[in-house]
């Protein structure tokens, strides 16, 4: 499997690796994929009072393309409103990273991770402040 230069760059210099406190009310966490399939992505967004994603973090278990896809979307979501971030499509990721057909599922997973993180953040806002989701339930949010 040979990778595009952009995949290699994101893989070797991943952007925004890490974790936020998932119980923080301003943080949305999306965990998608399954170990059995060879990919699990955790994407977290920190949303400011204006509803803008001001920061993002990821951790990914998966191939180089999965790591690159999640690294890329942490850059893309920053500065976007939740609605704008919802518009990110996997096909844009495929194009940017020049992913081959066998790696398209990585881009789909990254798109799903954004949506899961936003859904988690929105669900928290609807609950009373301080309520948080049990970590082990979050993985089902895909």
């Amino acid at each position, binding site marked *: *499997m040979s990778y595009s230069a952009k995949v290699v760059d994101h893989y070797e210099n991943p952007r925004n690796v890490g974790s936020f406190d998932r119980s923080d009310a301003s943080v949305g966490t999306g965990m998608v994929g399954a*170990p059995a399939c060879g*990919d699990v992505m955790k994407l977290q967004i920190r949303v400011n009072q204006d509803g803008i994603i001001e920061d993002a973090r990821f*951790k990914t278990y998966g191939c180089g393309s999965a790591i690159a896809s999640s690294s890329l979307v942490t850059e893309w979501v920053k500065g976007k409103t939740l609605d704008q971030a919802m518009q990110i499509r996997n096909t844009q990721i495929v194009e940017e990273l020049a992913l081959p057909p066998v790696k398209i599922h990585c881009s789909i997973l990254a798109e799903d991770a954004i949506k899961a993180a936003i859904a988690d953040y929105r669900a928290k806002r609807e609950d009373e402040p301080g309520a948080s989701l049990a*970590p082990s339930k979050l993985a*089902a949010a*895909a």
Partner: protein
Amino acid sequence: MAKSDRMRFPIYLDYSATTPADPRVVDAMLPYLHEKFGNPASRSHAFGWETERAVEQAREQVAALVGADPREIVWTSGATESINLALKGAAQFYRDKGRHLVTVRTEHKATLDTTRELERCGFEVTYLDVKPDGLLDLQQLEAALRPDTILVSVMMVNNEIGVIQDIEAIGELCRGRGIVFHVDAAQASGKIPIDLARLKVDLMSFSAHKTYGPKGVGALYVRRKPRVRLEAQIHGGGHERGLRSGTLPTHQIVGMGEAFRIAKEEMSSDNERIRALRDQLWSGLSEIPEVYLNGDMHRRVPHNLNVSFNFVEGESLIMAIKEVAVSSGSACTSASLEPSYVLRALGRSDELAHSSIRFTVGRFTTREEIAYTIELLRRKVSRLRDMSPLWEMHGEGVDLDSVQWAAH
């Protein structure tokens, strides 16, 4: 860590995928490409006589490594063709005796895809499971044998995990019942002693390029006493006593002969050195937390180490250690997204199967290369785990099996 000037990169640790031809093999082959170019089937002139002699000398060299009579060796294009000829040839010849075949789930695709084809042709095939150590349960094998079983096929050494099946005991079970027994020995020749004078094996497949010979040539052993019959699969000029037509590739055959001659002479000293390197590698890698050895360590060829690095995905790890050439699963299946079917058959979880790397050392591996590899793995596994949500959850004490994952 500074790269030593003496090391060449990438470091090759994939000797089970293929081996470089030994320089002595190359030297033996070259004259047969130009000066000694005759067709060994040409009976009417010296050009043919000269190459026929070379082919027969190579046949003796191959036979000598495995305790066979040279007349029992049939040249083929490689182990895949040998396996096809053995399985299809025996199944077709003995089809009036029965239509049942027995093999193992962890066989190479050359066997499994051939038995699938035989199923499409009306044969019935039983695929045996292996124990968690990768070895066959002989009682289970015995229970699978039926009055209409005509053929059993078991690999001597597994290509992914390197475990050695008890060919002697399986041979006893088959011979007593008049069942033809084929053994895929592609990964075994030159790695462990093979004595066909003693083993009750009827057919055995060999490859040259796994034993420091050239690619594109192999052999099938076909027992003479008691005689085993096959239907030919490639028809033509009736070469190889009608079992495999086609002009013999003299240079390739000479190369295989020389490679097997070297293996016979140097196997024991070579393997002692190779085993020490493999043990050095495992002793270093096993210090990394959450690392699992796949397959039994004792009934195993000396050059193989198959390791799962839990919470790290194999393909990304291979990408991280590009200074080292290794494989994830087997080279034949690593283009697919499926985890290794061999590791799944051992009962390994999907995560551990996805996290496996096969290291296979060989004749030209050095201690410095192994030390470099251990240090590289330590750093890269740690880096990828820092990036892994599974490692994070493991650290938080989350039982990953209790999580409802959304399969995709």
